[in-house]
């Protein structure tokens, strides 16, 4: 039951990142999604992995609060297609995770697919740096989480690496990007 809630939370966070344009919305989404993924990682890869994801999420959210458009800007005007995207991806992921594939770890499979899918779609659709880098952070965490599906992960390295990337990416300020 905990895993299911964690999966929902991860999806909710990823959806917020897709729907929000303001720094607060993006930070909140990153944090929520990381939290959900951390809980799932605890079962799959142990406390170090879960801690890495959680820490990565916190650092990412903190970094995101420093730069980007002020305020929440969650579901701004014209974001209906993104909303439809979040729901559709969730439904497809759920169908694949629960009905199509077999074996334990339905929540893990759902979360990996939905976070990778939504973050990839956000990268494809976004133009501003904050949204792009937030999605990048989530993508990194999801890739590490996906490493846990199938066979048991031998080492926590993917989670550590993902955390570093997620955390580091959010501290890249738009000024550096504009000057480059």
């Amino acid at each position: 039951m905990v895993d299911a809630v964690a999966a929902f939370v991860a999806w909710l966070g990823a959806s917020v990142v897709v729907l929000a344009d303001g720094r607060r919305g993006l930070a909140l989404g990153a944090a929520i999604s990381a939290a959900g993924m951390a809980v799932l990682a605890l079962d799959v890869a142990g406390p170090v992995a879960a801690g890495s994801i959680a820490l990565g999420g916190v650092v990412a959210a903190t970094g995101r609060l420093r730069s980007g458009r002020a305020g929440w800007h969650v579901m701004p005007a014209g974001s209906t297609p993104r909303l439809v995207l979040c729901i559709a991806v969730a439904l497809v992921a759920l169908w694949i995770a629960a009905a199509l594939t077999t074996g334990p770890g339905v929540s893990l499979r759902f979360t990996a697919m939905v976070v990778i899918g939504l973050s990839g779609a956000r990268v494809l659709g976004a133009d501003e740096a904050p949204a792009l880098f937030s999605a990048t952070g989530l993508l990194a965490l999801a890739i590490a989480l996906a490493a846990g599906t199938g066979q048991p992960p031998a080492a926590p390295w993917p989670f550590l690496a993902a955390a570093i990337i997620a955390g580091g990416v959010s501290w890249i300020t738009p000024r550096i990007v504009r000057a480059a």
Partner: protein
Amino acid sequence: MQPEAVELVVLAAAALAFAVVFSPAAASRRELLGKGGAGVLGAAAIAAVPTFDLALLVLLALGVLHSVIGGKRSLAIRLRGPLVAVALLGLGAFFARVQGPDAMERFAAVGLVAGLAAGVGVLPYLHPIDPDEPLVSSPVAWLAVVGPVLAAVVVQRAQSLLLVDAAGAFGAMLIGLGLINVAWGSAGAWLTESEAAAWRYSFVADWGLVLCGMGLIVADGQRAAIVMLFSIVLGRLPLYLLSRTAVRDKSVSGRPVSLVVAAALAGSAPFAGFAARLLLLRAATQLFWPLAIVLAAGMLMWLPGSLRLGRSLGLLKGRQAVGIALVLAVNVAAGLYPLPLLLAAHL
């Protein structure tokens, strides 16, 4: 580490060294060394990390790094290719690991092939280009430095991740995409208006043959791919570097050197491209001989584009002329005697 990937990292390092030595301006040499070095290190990291997921994370980091170092194109465009590649490769690996119907395996193959195409920057996921963009931040960095290593890693991992049926679909998709890129790339190199785009399309055309080689599961296919990647990294890339000075000056040279360069770019004998084509025809003949006929016909489409690119090399003197001679000599040696390349990659 995978010997093939190691060899490609070494070739990328050699190409970087060539670029630094034969680059016309001092300022660009430092930039080349710094940013180019980071690219080569990133490629090495992709090859070195023990698991596929870590490789994806390294690729993601490299993508972010490449987008941040600047360039004419917008951040979103520079970030899109690598990140979509990571997402697709991640999903591909994920589908390969979960138990489920055969379709899941095939979706895994789709994810890996699409991710590879997005990472390298070939059809259908061409990275948008800007003619005035410096080399290190242009898509050619993915096509000629990181892409080869990424391709080697992805193909090798795919062989372990995918079962027989999905592996067949994986190979078939690679060959299909390869033929599309051969046609589009060679036509683009010939007909497109801007010279820089023409050079990019010529890389895409070469990648078409690489994908076909990787898709042909026989040993000769892998050999063809590694020799073709050699002719990209240590043939087409250095010549592209040298031509960038001429392209801006719009000086088109009718000198015979441009014909020799055109021959090297067109994969004519005795350059490395011809040896790669020979191996590719061998592999195709072993698998399905009509494919060899199609490939042989496709190989002729390099000619007009290569003549154009050869002419765009301009009147190069002194150090650049020595650079061209060195590139041609290396390609002739590899074309006549590619065995060391293959042994180094354990093929």
